[in-house]
Structure formats: C-alpha cells, structure tokens
C-alpha cells in the first residue's frame, strides 16, 4: 500500500467535522488502560511483567513484536480469556471483567475459532445473543454483515465447509456483530490473499472513521504502517517504544518501519537494560 494513500486517509480524518465535534465533547476515558499488568503462567513463565499501556478513544493503535513478546497474552487478558497475575485493565473506564466493559470489546482472533455446529448465520446471530441483543436485531445485523462480507450465499453453510478467506471474513463479521467500541484485531490478515487483505484494510479504516477504536497486532509491518496512527513496539512483555510511524522512523533513524522494527528488536534485552 503506497504511503500517499495512508496520508490521504489521515488527512481526511483530521479535517473531518465529526472529529472536531468529538473533541468538543467531555473527555472520554481511554479505550484501554493497562496498569502494572503482569502475567505468569502456571509453569512459571512470565509472559508480561509490569506492562503499562494507554490507548485513547478513537485511536488506531498497532502493536508490533516478535512471537512470544506478550501480544496475545495482553489481548487475551483484555478480552477476559487470560487471568492476569497482577495489575489492572480498564476498558473505557470499566474494570475489564465487568459486563459494561465486555460489551464494548470485539475480538477477531488470529486463529479461526468458529462454532463448527452452527451455520454462518447462526454463528453471527448467537454471538450477538451472548451480548444480549434481541433476535430480530441480531438477524438483521447478521444479514447486513453477511452482505458486506459477501457471505449471504453461504448463510446456511457451516464453517468447516467454507474456504479460508470466507472463514476469515466470518471471523471479522462476528467481531462486529455487537458494534464494539473497541475492536481488537489479532493478526486479522494472516494467511489471506492480497485482494482480501486490501479489502479488510479499507473496511477497517472506515470503521475507524466512524469512531471505533482499533487495536491491531500484525506481523505485516507495512500493514501497521499503512493503517495505524500510532504503533507500539513490544518486546519481552514491555512496550519499548510507541509513536507514529514517522516518529518511530525519526527516533531510530530508519528509512521504513521494517528497519525500525529490526533496530528496536536488536537492542539489548530489556533485562540487561534494566540492570
């Protein structure tokens, strides 16, 4: 994706009158506030230690880091799927395990985790149901999203019979069923073709434009650079840098975000730096 296109999207966001309207309203609590978050697994492995992170309402925040850096642990904890060992997680000011917090978060996981017993429409409708949405509204929303994601023709098909791209689209649609205010995308374009990836990017941009806060993890560095207003680099369970793509390039004296990433990850281990 050429960077000029990214610039155009950002410019439109900045001049968007809705943004100005949002700025004049009372301050909204951060979409995500993580304080002193530590997770030590049963075997004694500490994936994340003392992590602090704040993502403002309306942000498009990317989280980059190698495998094992703690991204999935952090996302799992935010989504109530991992039990934090210590620390506090708040979603729009609500403690993360509360129902008020849960209804505000949508998650599209990296792995395809779709209910194999239900068909496409049922996957969407039941998901909405778990969020307390009534049947008529859930069915209408499911039809809407099936149309958006080109799944209407597969409404009665179960996930195992779908192609990989269709499953990825269904996963994305499911995360949007309850219109979350904070959408977490954990490597949403892993394993999809270039065409679908571009379409998902475009759709994600539109979601962001209407005010959805987006937390994206990805191994595709150009994806983070193209989409995110701000990028956080995570290593060994700690945020070692966060800034816009331009800011990171300047900070690391790098030509592109890939070089930023390599330089940041090649620095001394966090433990040594602390010593």
């Amino acid at each position, binding site marked *: 994706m050429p960077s000029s296109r990214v610039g155009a999207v950002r410019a439109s966001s900045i001049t968007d009158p809705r943004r100005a309207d949002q700025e004049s309203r009372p301050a*909204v*609590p951060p979409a995500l506030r993580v304080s002193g978050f530590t997770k030590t*697994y*049963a075997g004694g492995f500490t994936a994340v230690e003392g992590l602090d992170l704040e993502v403002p*309402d309306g942000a498009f925040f990317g989280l980059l880091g190698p495998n094992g850096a703690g991204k999935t642990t952090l996302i*799992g904890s935010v*989504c*109530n*799927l*991992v*039990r934090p060992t210590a620390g506090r997680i708040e979603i729009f*000011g609500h403690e993360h395990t509360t*129902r*008020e917090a*849960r*209804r*505000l*978060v949508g*998650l599209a*996981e990296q*792995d395809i*985790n*779709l*209910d*194999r*017993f*239900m068909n496409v429409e*049922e996957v969407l409708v*039941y*998901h909405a*149901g*778990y*969020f*307390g*949405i*009534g*049947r008529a509204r859930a069915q209408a*929303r499911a039809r*809407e*999203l099936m149309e*958006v*994601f*080109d799944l209407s023709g597969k409404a009665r098909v179960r996930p195992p019979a779908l192609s990989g791209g269709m499953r990825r*689209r269904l996963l994305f649609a499911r995360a*949007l069923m309850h*219109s*979350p*205010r904070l959408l977490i995308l954990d490597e949403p374009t892993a394993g999809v073709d270039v*065409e*679908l990836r571009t*379409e*998902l990017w*475009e*759709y994600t941009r*539109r*979601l962001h*434009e*209407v*005010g959805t*806060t987006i937390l994206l993890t990805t191994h595709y560095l150009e994806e983070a650079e193209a989409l995110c207003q701000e990028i956080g680099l995570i290593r060994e369970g700690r945020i070692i840098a966060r800034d816009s793509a331009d800011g990171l390039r300047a900070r690391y004296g790098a030509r592109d975000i890939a070089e930023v990433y390599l330089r940041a990850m090649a620095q001394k281990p966090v433990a040594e730096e602390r010593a």
Partner: protein
Amino acid sequence: MSSHVTDPAAVVAARDAGDRCAGHLPPPAAYDEPFAEERRGLLWLCEREIVRFLKLWVQTIVAPVISSLLFIVVFGMALGDRIADVDGVPYDQFIVPGLVVQAILTAAYSNNSSTLFQARSDRFLNDVLSSPLRWWEVNIGVAIGGVVRGLLTGIVLLACAVVMTGVSIEQPLVLVVATALILVAFAQLGVIAGIYAKSWDFMAFVTTLVILPLSFLGGIFYSVDRLPEGWQVVSHLNPIFYLVQAFREGFSGTSDVPIGLSLAVVAVLAVVLSGWCAWLFRTGHRLKP
C-alpha cells in the same frame, strides 16, 4: 476484480448526509451506559446448546434409545421368560428403570463433555468467555444441553418401553425428583469432564470404563439381594446403584434400599458436582490460563 467486502462508501455517504445509523457502520456503542439485554444472553446460550444436539438428533437421541430398547428386547422379552419375576415384577419390566437411568445419565454426561471439549479444542468457547455472560450463566447454559438431551432421551425411551412391556409408574413424584437430581448430577459431571479432558480418548475412557461398568454393576439387570453378601457391600459403594434404586421405587414402588437414602445419595452427588463446576467457572480454572 471481484470484491469480497462491499465498498462501504455509499453507506458512509448516507450517514454523512444525516443518517448516522445507516447500514452496517453504526456509531460505536456508548461507553457510559449500563449493560442492558433485549434478550438474556443465558437464553441464547441455552438455545445454542439445545440446537446443537437437535441438529445431530439421530446420533444424540435415536441411537441411545435404540441401544436401550435392544436390551429390553434381548434380555427382557427374549430371555425374560426364563427368568422368574423379581420381587413380583416381570423381568422385562424390572429392567426398564435401570435402562432409563443409564440412558439419561449417559446422554447428559456425553452431551456436555463433548460440547465443552469441542468448544475448548476449537477455541470457539472464547466467543462465550469474552462476552458479557457471567460465569454462572455460562455454567448453566452449557449444562442445560445435557439436561434437555437426557430428558428427551428418557421420555422417548420410556414411551417405547411402556408400549413394549406395559411397565407402569407407581410413584411419579419420586420419579420426577430422582430424574431432576440425576440430570443435574450428570450434566455437571459432563461439564467437569469437558473442562479437564485433554483428548477425546479421555471422555471415551470415562464412559466406557467408569459409567458403563458402574451402571451394569448398579443393579440394572438384577436385585442386589440375590448377590453374595460381599458383592452386596460393593454394590452399596456404587453411586449409580442408588440412582437405579430411586428410579425403581418410582416405577414399581419397591427397591433394595429406602427411597430416602437413594434420593439423599443422588442429591449429595448433584450438590458436590455442581459445587465443583461452579468453582471451575468462577475461577476460570483450566478454562482461562
């Protein structure tokens, strides 16, 4: 180039023209409103669990009913003529309560153990665990599938058995109470197995080497009074023995132990297993790392 995701530009334009709720890009949910449900998430989860096993009705309802009916045909009707009445009850009718108990508890157990293990294994349980459903709602929602499946299996089997053997129900209230307790106990046991299981083999192991032998040794086909004294003592250590006795009391009005003792044992089993389940869901033990 075919597009998989509809261009939302038209929808955005409609929204910008004043209709903020146009199409599939509604404004994000308000962050400061209390959580409210149009329809309880618990009801949706219950419905999902029931729909799941009904989609597989041949495997989940028909197969166990036929399996139990074969026992009635072979042991009760074909060989029953060669066996004297047991406590004044014709043999084909004598074995019905035990077979109904076995069918109910196996259905409740296997439904919940398999639905939960599959959901864990494929990780679509995350869809439920990350939702606003409370821990006790998830517990009830998952357990209800086994309860309804066990109940349906028992009703269909009983209806067939009444036609085939003419068995009657002497104490319906006892039968209702015993059925409710058995369903709770084994629905929860299934949930526990589904949470602890690391493979499908584990659940097959529990069914084949724990539930089935205990059922057969629990007096389905015989009265323990006819066993040697040592085996009678062993039978009294088997919890399924008390389930069978409670059912037999409901059907024929007779059993090998007082009905109060039978119901008490089943009730204790139900309470202990429910407590265990509640602890697992409340703490997230084995469900959330």
